[in-house]
């Protein structure tokens, strides 16, 4: 299972093109959703509509939403990704189009919603795992468990480097929105990386202190 398939929300709300803006707003409120997938008469994805679309395109233009069909104000075509797409590429596409949520398709049908906040939450989790591992290695550099699962201490920083590099790539692709959980994790990883850096300095003091 690739990352997009793991990260998407399987629960999302849909509405028909002919339903009213008022109905869409009520659905968003009841479902605590910020986006609805709009389906045409055949059930295919016709577009998307967000709470911001409703605000700017309807309220901002003084239009009466009581009978206004969603099909008239939705964004179309929707920017989508496939379940099999590379996550970094999907994030880059979201960034390019300035969107935070993207329907994920399988065989042309929407099966989930890729949400930037969820991606950041996931990245935060990876950072936390990384920081825990860094801490464990620092506290127990000769631990059999750590050695057996992760190799020699000399490989510690090479692994950290690789994993941080991957995280950095994701952050770069998705760096314009935050999730609060992410913030706490970074404080933690910073503290723990500071623990592991001197470890490396001891291993290669001459090189490290230049």
């Amino acid at each position: 299972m690739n990352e997009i398939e793991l990260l998407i929300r399987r629960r999302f709300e849909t509405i028909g093109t002919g339903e009213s803006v008022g109905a869409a707003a009520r659905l968003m409120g009841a479902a605590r959703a910020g986006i609805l997938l709009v389906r045409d008469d055949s059930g295919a994805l016709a577009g998307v509509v967000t709470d911001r679309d409703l605000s700017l395109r309807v309220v901002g233009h003084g239009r009466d939403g009581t009978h206004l069909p969603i099909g008239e104000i939705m964004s179309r075509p929707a920017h989508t990704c496939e379940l099999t797409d590379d996550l970094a590429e999907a994030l880059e596409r979201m960034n390019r189009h300035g969107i935070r949520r993207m329907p994920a398709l399988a065989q042309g049908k929407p099966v989930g919603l890729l949400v930037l906040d969820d991606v950041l939450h996931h990245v935060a989790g990876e950072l936390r795992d990384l920081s825990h591992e860094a801490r464990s290695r620092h506290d127990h550099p000769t631990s059999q468990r750590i050695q057996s699962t992760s190799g020699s201490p000399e490989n510690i920083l090479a692994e950290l480097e690789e994993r941080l590099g991957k995280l950095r790539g994701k952050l770069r692709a998705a760096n314009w929105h935050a999730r609060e959980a992410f913030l706490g994790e970074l404080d933690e990883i910073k503290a723990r990386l500071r623990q592991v850096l001197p470890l490396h300095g001891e291993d290669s003091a001459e090189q490290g202190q230049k």
Partner: protein
Amino acid sequence: MALPNRFLAKPRTIAPAASAQLAAEQMDNAHVGSLIVTDERDNPVGILTDRDIALGVLCCDLAAEAVTVAELMSTPLHTIQRDQSLAEAAHLMRVHGIRRLPIVDAGGALLGLIAADDLIQILSADICHLSGAVQKSFVLESLPLPNHGSIFGPE
């Protein structure tokens, strides 16, 4: 370390008596997702988001010109002082479950706005610095702080 100066641009504001329609127009024109609501003495009293407008007006099939900003805005307004840190901003956002924090002076006057989006950009830069530190075997203390300030504060 105080909040970086680049966040001290005064954000878009609107009066409590203004209509929801005017608020939505202003958000559209300014390409923003929120407006700070200020009273007649220019003190910030609330915040209004595009979602507040969409749900507040359209859920009940109300007329946009008849609904006021005061009816839709969120209060009380959570703010941060300019001499507080980025870490405190992150903490306040987490505690209150919000993404935007108006920056005020000691008297409560509006000075700027910092958003969760801004924090993540700073954090991303910090991660790059940390990653670079690992790659180059530098000890962290030897690294210069990024000139935009850091979520982690002064070392």
